[in-house]
C-alpha cells in the first residue's frame, strides 16, 4: 500500500504544503479577527483599567473674606516627602535623616512601612515639611533616588481673630462622613469642613475635582501622561465665600472677651447681616487644621469651658431685664395698658409674698415708658398678670425667640419660650397666675440666645422688621461672577408703629438717663437695655442689648457675659465700644478708661 503513493510529483506535495500553510495562517487571521474586531471593546476596557490610573487633581479650596474683601482664610502649601523604597538607596538613610532633622531610626521605620505597603509606589512618609527642607532635599536630589515630594494644601488663617464658631475648621474626613457623602467623590485622606462656614458651605468651597490620567506600568509606577494628557479634566477652584463679618469689629470683639465667657452678636438691623459673632472660650482654627496633640483634643472635647459650644447661637440664658421692652410692647398691643396707664411700685409685687417678685427700688406710680427706663420689676410683674401665657408665647415667637432663625452657618438652639402646655407639663398639680409672672422680667423658664437678642433689638431699632440673620454675603466664582445666597424675607412684627416708637424712645432714655448712661457713645444717639440674669452657678450673667444710631440704626448688638455681674458692668461696655468702633472707626480718647476697665472684667472662674 505504501508503494502506491511513492512516486508522486513533488509539486503536488508543494501544493499540499501551501494549502496547509494557508490554512494555518488563515486560522490565526480568524483568531485575530475575533480578538481585535469582534471582541475589541471587551479587551480595550480591560487594558485600560489595567494600565490607566485616574488621579484626582484637587482644586484650591475657596478662600474666605470679610464683608469688604479682607482676607480671613486662604491656603498655604505644605510639603509631603514621599519615598519609593525600590529606588531608595539604604546607604543614604543618614543623609535623609539629617536633612529632615529626624533620627535615622525614624527613616528606617518609615522605609519599612512603605516597603510593606508597596515597594514600587511613592509612599507619603513625612508630612508638613517646610519649604527650606524641600529646598535642601532638592539640592541633594542626585544622591537621594526614590525620594520625591508633593505639595499639599493646608488652611491658613490670616486674620488677627479666631472667629472659630463662624469659620469652623477642616480636617481629614472620617469613615462615617465617607459613608454619608458616598457618591460625592470623597476618598480616604480628603479634607472636609467639620463645622462653621467650612462645613455649611463645604460644597462651594471645595470646588470641582479634576482628573489626570496616568499610564501605569505593571509595577504600579506612573510612567507617563495617558494620551499626552488630552483626556485630563482641569479642576475648578472653590468659590470665595464673602462673609458679612466686619474684620475690625470681629477683632475688637474677640479682644474685649479675653478672660471672659460669653457671646456677642452684632448685626446690621437693616439686613440681618451679622457684623461680628463671638463665642468665648473658643479655639484657634489653625491648631485644629494640623495634627492635634492628645492634650489639645482633650481640651477641645471635654473641657468644662466647652470651646466647641457656640454660645452665640446655642446658649440658653434668661434675658433678664432685656425682655422688658418686649413685654411692654405686648401689653400695649394687647391693650391691657395704654401709654399713660400707671402701676404703683412699692418695692415689689403684692402677689409676690416672698423673695421672687421684688423690685430693686421703690419706683412709685409709673407709666410704661418710665418703667422701661428705670427697669421697674413691679410694673412688668403686673403686666404678666394681665397678659395670658399663650399671647406671651405668640409675641415672643414673632420676635424670633423660641425658634431657629434659620441661620446659614452653624448650629442653633431654639431657645425656650414657655406656653400653657409647657406650664401644664412642668406643674402637674396645677399652676396659678403667679407662676409665669417672672417671665415679665425675663427670668424663670425662659431661654434665649445672644443671636436672638441681637435680632430682637435690631427689629426694634429698624421700627419693626425682623430680618433673618446670616453670615454669608455672597459667593464669588473664580471667573468673577457672583452668586447670592437666598435669604428669607424679613417679617413684620405684630406691633403698631406707635407702640414700637414709644418703646424705642424709652430705650433711648435708658442710654441717656438710665442704667446705660455711663456707656453712651459720645456724639451718637443710641438705645439699649441692660439685663442681669440669675445664673444658678455662681454670679449673675451680664446681658446687654443696644442699637445705634438711634434714628437710622446700622448696628444692633446682643451681648452676654457669663458670671460677670450687672449688665452695665461687662456686657454693656462691650456693646457700646463695638458700636462706637463700627460707627466711627475708632474709640474716642475719652473712652480709653472704659476700654481698659472692660478688658479687666473677668468671668468668675468655673468651679473645677
Amino acid at each position, binding site marked *: 500500500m505504501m508503494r502506491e503513493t511513492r512516486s508522486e510529483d513533488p509539486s503536488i506535495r508543494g501544493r499540499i504544503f*501551501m494549502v496547509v500553510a494557508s490554512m494555518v495562517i488563515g486560522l490565526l487571521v480568524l483568531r485575530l479577527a475575533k480578538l481585535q474586531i469582534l471582541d475589541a471593546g471587551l479587551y480595550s476596557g480591560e487594558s485600560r483599567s489595567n494600565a490607566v490610573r485616574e488621579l484626582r487633581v484637587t482644586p484650591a479650596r475657596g478662600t474666605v473674606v470679610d464683608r469688604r474683601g479682607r482676607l480671613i482664610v486662604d491656603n498655604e502649601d505644605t510639603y509631603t516627602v514621599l519615598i519609593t523604597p525600590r529606588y531608595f538607596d539604604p546607604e543614604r538613610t543618614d543623609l535623609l535623616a539629617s536633612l529632615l532633622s529626624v533620627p535615622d531610626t525614624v527613616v528606617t521605620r518609615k522605609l519599612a512601612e512603605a516597603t510593606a505597603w508597596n515597594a514600587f509606589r511613592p509612599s507619603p512618609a513625612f508630612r508638613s515639611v517646610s519649604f527650606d527642607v524641600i529646598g535642601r532635599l532638592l539640592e541633594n536630589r542626585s544622591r537621594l533616588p526614590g525620594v520625591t515630594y508633593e505639595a499639599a494644601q493646608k488652611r491658613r488663617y490670616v486674620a488677627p481673630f479666631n472667629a472659630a464658631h463662624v469659620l469652623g475648621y477642616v480636617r481629614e474626613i472620617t469613615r462615617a462622613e465617607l459613608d454619608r457623602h458616598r457618591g460625592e467623590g470623597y476618598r480616604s485622606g480628603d479634607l472636609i469642613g467639620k463645622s462653621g462656614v467650612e462645613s455649611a458651605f463645604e460644597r462651594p468651597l471645595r470646588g470641582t475635582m479634576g482628573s489626570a490620567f496616568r499610564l*501605569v506600568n505593571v509595577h504600579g509606577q506612573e510612567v507617563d501622561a495617558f494620551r499626552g494628557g488630552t483626556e485630563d479634566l482641569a479642576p475648578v477652584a472653590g468659590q470665595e465665600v464673602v462673609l458679612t463679618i466686619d474684620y475690625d469689629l470681629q477683632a475688637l470683639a474677640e479682644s474685649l472677651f479675653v478672660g471672659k465667657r460669653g457671646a456677642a452678636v452684632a448685626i446690621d438691623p437693616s439686613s440681618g447681616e451679622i457684623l461680628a459673632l463671638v463665642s468665648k472660650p473658643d479655639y484657634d482654627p489653625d491648631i485644629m487644621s494640623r495634627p492635634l496633640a492628645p492634650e489639645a483634643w482633650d481640651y477641645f472635647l471635654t473641657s468644662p469651658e466647652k470651646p466647641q459650644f457656640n454660645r452665640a447661637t446655642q446658649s440658653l440664658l434668661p434675658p433678664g431685664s432685656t425682655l422688658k421692652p418686649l413685654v411692654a410692647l405686648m401689653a400695649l398691643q394687647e391693650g391691657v395698658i395704654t401709654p399713660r396707664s400707671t402701676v404703683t411700685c412699692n418695692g415689689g409685687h403684692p402677689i409676690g409674698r416672698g423673695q421672687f417678685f421684688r423690685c430693686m427700688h421703690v419706683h412709685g406710680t409709673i407709666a410704661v415708658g418710665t418703667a422701661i427706663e428705670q427697669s421697674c420689676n413691679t410694673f412688668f410683674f403686673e403686666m404678666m398678670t394681665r397678659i395670658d401665657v399663650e399671647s406671651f408665647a405668640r409675641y415672643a415667637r414673632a420676635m424670633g425667640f423660641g425658634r431657629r432663625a434659620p441661620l446659614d452657618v452653624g448650629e442653633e438652639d431654639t431657645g425656650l419660650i414657655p406656653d400653657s402646655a409647657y406650664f401644664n407639663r412642668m406643674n402637674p398639680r396645677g399652676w396659678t397666675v403667679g407662676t409665669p409672672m417672672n417671665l415679665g422680667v425675663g427670668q424663670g423658664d425662659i431661654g434665649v440666645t445672644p443671636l436672638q437678642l441681637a435680632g430682637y433689638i435690631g427689629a426694634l431699632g429698624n421700627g419693626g422688621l425682623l430680618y433673618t440673620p446670616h453670615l454669608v454675603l455672597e459667593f464669588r466664582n473664580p471667573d468673577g461672577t457672583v452668586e447670592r445666597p437666598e435669604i428669607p424675607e424679613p417679617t413684620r412684627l405684630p406691633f403698631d408703629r406707635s407702640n414700637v416708637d414709644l418703646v424705642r424712645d424709652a430705650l433711648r432714655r435708658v442710654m441717656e438717663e438710665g442704667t446705660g448712661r455711663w456707656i453712651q457713645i459720645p456724639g451718637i444717639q443710641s438705645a439699649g437695655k441692660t439685663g442681669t440674669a440669675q445664673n444658678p452657678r455662681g454670679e449673675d450673667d451680664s446681658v446687654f442689648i443696644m442699637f445705634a444710631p438711634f434714628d437710622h440704626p446700622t448696628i444692633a448688638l446682643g451681648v452676654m457675659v457669663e458670671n460677670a455681674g450687672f449688665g452695665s458692668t461687662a456686657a454693656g461696655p462691650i456693646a457700646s465700644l463695638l458700636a462706637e468702633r463700627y460707627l466711627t472707626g475708632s474709640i474716642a480718647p475719652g473712652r480709653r478708661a472704659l476700654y481698659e476697665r472692660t478688658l479687666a472684667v473677668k468671668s468668675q472662674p468655673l468651679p473645677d
Partner: protein
Amino acid sequence: MRTWYRTLDYLSIVAWAALVGIGLVAIYSTTHGPAAEFLLESVRGNYDRQMVWAGICLVGFCIALLIPVRVYQKSAPIVYLGAILLLLAALLFGREINGARSWIAFGPAQFQVSEFAKVGAVIGVAHLVGSRRPGTAGLRTALAIIGLLMLPAMLIVLQNDTGTALVFIGLIPVMLFWAGVPVDLLMLLLAPAVTGYLAIVYEPAAIAFVVLFTLFMYIRTRDRKLTALAAAITGGTLGAVAVALTKILQPHQVARVLSFTRPEAEEFRHDVGFHLVQSLAAIGSGGLAGKGFMQGTQTQGRYVPEQSTDFVFSVIGEEFGFLGSVLVLMLFLFLLVRLVMLGNQMKHPFAMMVAAGTSGVYLIHVFVNVGMATAILPVIGIPLPFISYGGSALLAHTALLAITLTLHMRRDDFSIYGY
C-alpha cells in the same frame, strides 16, 4: 547561462528585511517608549543589540551567498554533528538562562545553541534524503529522519527547553512529508498531535476525533491492521494525556498546559494565565488599526511578560492592530509559499529538502508563537522568527533562509555533481 545574481530571489529578501524591520520597530517601542526611563539598564539596550544582530545577519547573508553549493552539501553531516556536539557541550558546560541550560558564551556574546541546532537538523535531514534516490523513501528513511530529529530534540529536553524541542518534533511530519513518506503514515503520525490538543481543550471532541479518525482510516485503506493501529495510536494518546494531566505531571506543569484554555481562571491568574490575560488584553485592545507606535498602554506599561521576545506579537497586535498583525502573517505566508516554490524549482532533493525544512521551521514557529500569544495553544516559549528579540534565533532563522536562497541561486551547479 544567467549571471548568478540574476537568479537570486530578491522577493524573499524583501520579505525577510520587512519582517526584521517590523521586529526592530516592535523592540524599539518596548525600549524607547515614553516609559523608557523606568526600564532596567539591561532591557534598555535590547534595541541596540538587536540592531547589531541584524547587521551581523546581513553580513552573514552576503557571505552565505558566496559559498558554493558543494560546500553546503559536503559539510552537511559535519554541520549536523557539530550542532549535536554543541548541544552536548551546552548541556555539560553551558550557562543557564531562564532555567534553560542551552547557552554557550563566545567572547562577549552568548549563543543559544538549540537555535543553531535547527539549522543543523534541517541540513542533516536534507543530506540524508538527498543522498538517496528520489521517490525511494520507505520506512527505513522515515525512521532515519525521525532519529535525526529526535536526537537534538531529546538533548534540548535535557537542557530544560521543552518549547524548542517541540519544534524538532513538529519538524518530523513536515520532513517526512517532503521526503515522500506515504500520506497514511503521515496521518498516523499527525493524529496523536491532534488528539492530544483536543484532549486538552475539550475531551469529548478528542473522543469524537478518535472514533472518526479510525473510521476514516478504515474507509480509506480497508486495512484492518492499519485501522487497529490508528485506533490504538489515537486512543492511546487520549489515555496518555488524561493520565499525564491527572497523575504524572506536577500541578504547575498541568497549569502551564491547561491555562490557555481559560487564562482568566483564578488558579492560573498568577502564573502563565497572567501572560495570556495580558497578551489577549494587549492584542484585543489594539482593535482594527492599533493604538499607534509607542502608544500601547499594555506595551508601555510592560504588562505582557517577555514582550520583546516570545510575546512580541502582543506589541504588534496592540500598537498596529489587526491590520499590522495580518500584514506580519501575510509576509510570513508569502515567505512560506515562496520557499516552497523555490524548492520546487530546485530539482535536487537536498536543495528541495532545505527549502522545505526552512519553510517548515518557519511555519511551526509562526503557528505556535502566534497561537500562544492569542491563547489557542498552550504557552510554549519559542520566538517569532525575525521579529522576536534574540540574536541566536535571528541568526539561525536568517541562516536557513540564506542557505535556501544560495542553493536556489546556484541551482544550476547541482547538475555538475549529480547525486
